[in-house]
């Protein structure tokens, strides 16, 4: 949208009439105005007219980093630290089979949402894999130096092959993203496909 007071005024009118007709009100104090190529003074005026706070790129939008460029490794830091925190909070009294279950069901599932949208950088995948390996073979004790009993690529094979059914995050990432490509090529009836 253009940085124009008149257009903003109309937008607010639309939102208000929406609120009146449906009863779903907009919380302006939690809304944010993100400028792209707008001077500071102008933004101040506009934000005051609209009654919302100012924001800047990149910011988090429904749990994912949103920016005009590709997200950097640092933008995925919340995801990585989430996995790390999970590592210490899960029980340390499980045997190997239980730890495998947690690795597959919890630690592997955490990045799935981000992987549906972005191709995760190698560093991030490596970091998450590090936590998964650590938890599977050593449990939540971060200082343990116990060696792994089997190689990680072997563990990552499916259970009906020779592995333990842990997911290879890179391949999982690619196959999740292929879904978007499938939607696009088959012209499915989804707003973003129609837009492009």
């Amino acid at each position, binding site marked *: 949208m253009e940085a124009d007071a008149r257009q903003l005024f109309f937008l607010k009118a639309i939102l208000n009439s929406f609120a009146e007709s449906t009863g779903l009100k907009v919380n302006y104090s939690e809304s944010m105005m993100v400028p792209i190529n707008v001077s500071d003074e102008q933004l101040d005026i506009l934000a005051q007219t609209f009654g919302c706070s100012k924001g800047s790129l990149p910011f988090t939008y429904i749990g994912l980093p949103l920016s005009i460029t590709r997200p950097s490794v640092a933008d995925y830091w919340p995801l990585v630290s989430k996995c790390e925190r999970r590592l210490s909070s899960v029980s340390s009294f499980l*045997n*190997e*089979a*239980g730890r*495998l*279950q947690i690795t597959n069901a919890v630690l592997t599932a955490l990045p799935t949402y981000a992987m549906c949208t972005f191709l995760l950088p190698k560093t991030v995948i490596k970091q998450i894999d590090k936590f998964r390996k650590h938890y599977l073979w050593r449990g939540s004790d971060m200082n343990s130096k116990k*060696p792994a*009993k*089997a190689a990680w690529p*072997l563990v*990552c*094979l*499916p*259970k*009906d*092959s*020779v592995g*333990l059914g842990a*997911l*290879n995050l890179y*391949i*999982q990432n*690619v*196959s*999740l993203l*292929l*879904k978007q490509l*499938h939607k696009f090529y*088959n012209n499915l009836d989804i707003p973003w496909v129609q837009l492009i």
Partner: protein
Amino acid sequence: MASVTIMDGYTSFFWSDIWNGRLFSSQFPELFSFAKDKHISVQTFISMLAIEEPDELFHLPLSTQAYGQFQQLNSIIANITLQARNDVWSYIWNSNIFTSSKAYLNLISTRQVHSAFKWLWKSSCQAKRKFFFWLLLQDRLSTRDILKWRNMELQCYDCVLCHLCTEERLMHLFFSCPFSMSCKNTLGLAPMIFDDLFQTLSAFKLHLQQPFFMEIIIYICWAIWSARNDNIFRGLQHSIASCKASFRRELTQIKFRVSNNLKTPLAQWIEHYV
């Protein structure tokens, strides 16, 4: 990843797409090396061939091998007629619905493996026993030869369950060691022991002739393994009777995990042999 059923042949590459069940670049590699345009569409290729202009398609002259392949290709293409409809694309799992999990399984390269892995995960043992047996199948249990290989210093790398002074290897400990042999003999199990683990397992399956053979094998191995660990870490003397007792205890518990129609045969088997 995807294959195509040719209608007008406009959207598909002649050489590098799987169409009508064939991938020509790998079926005719020599001929492919002579191709001028490696990314030619099926439509263009067939129409060029129809007006007999092979010098547009290939770098001539062809080698004899490539010429033979060219004739084969010709006879295949003679049977194909293009239609005025769009190509129909589908994924290699015979459906045009995309699912990420199927894509994952296709992308991750799997190879055919011995069905012991299937038996293992299908068995109704506790997960920890399955994990133990998975390590056994992969030869990743911390037997003394593995410890030696990992540069762990031990006074002696010999098997503790027998007095043969052989190195404690996986196959020795679980199958050819006299102690484990006699354990199995008391259970009436004496199939052939091969050098190969999987061959041995198949022999066990054949010998047992029971639907719950995998559970039996897993618990025998577990009983031997715990006898070995008791001996090393707790200094308890191993005996066939105690090994058998622990096997019976574990197997009796499994009665509550197996499916209903296996409960009675399992109980009978335990009564009869253990």
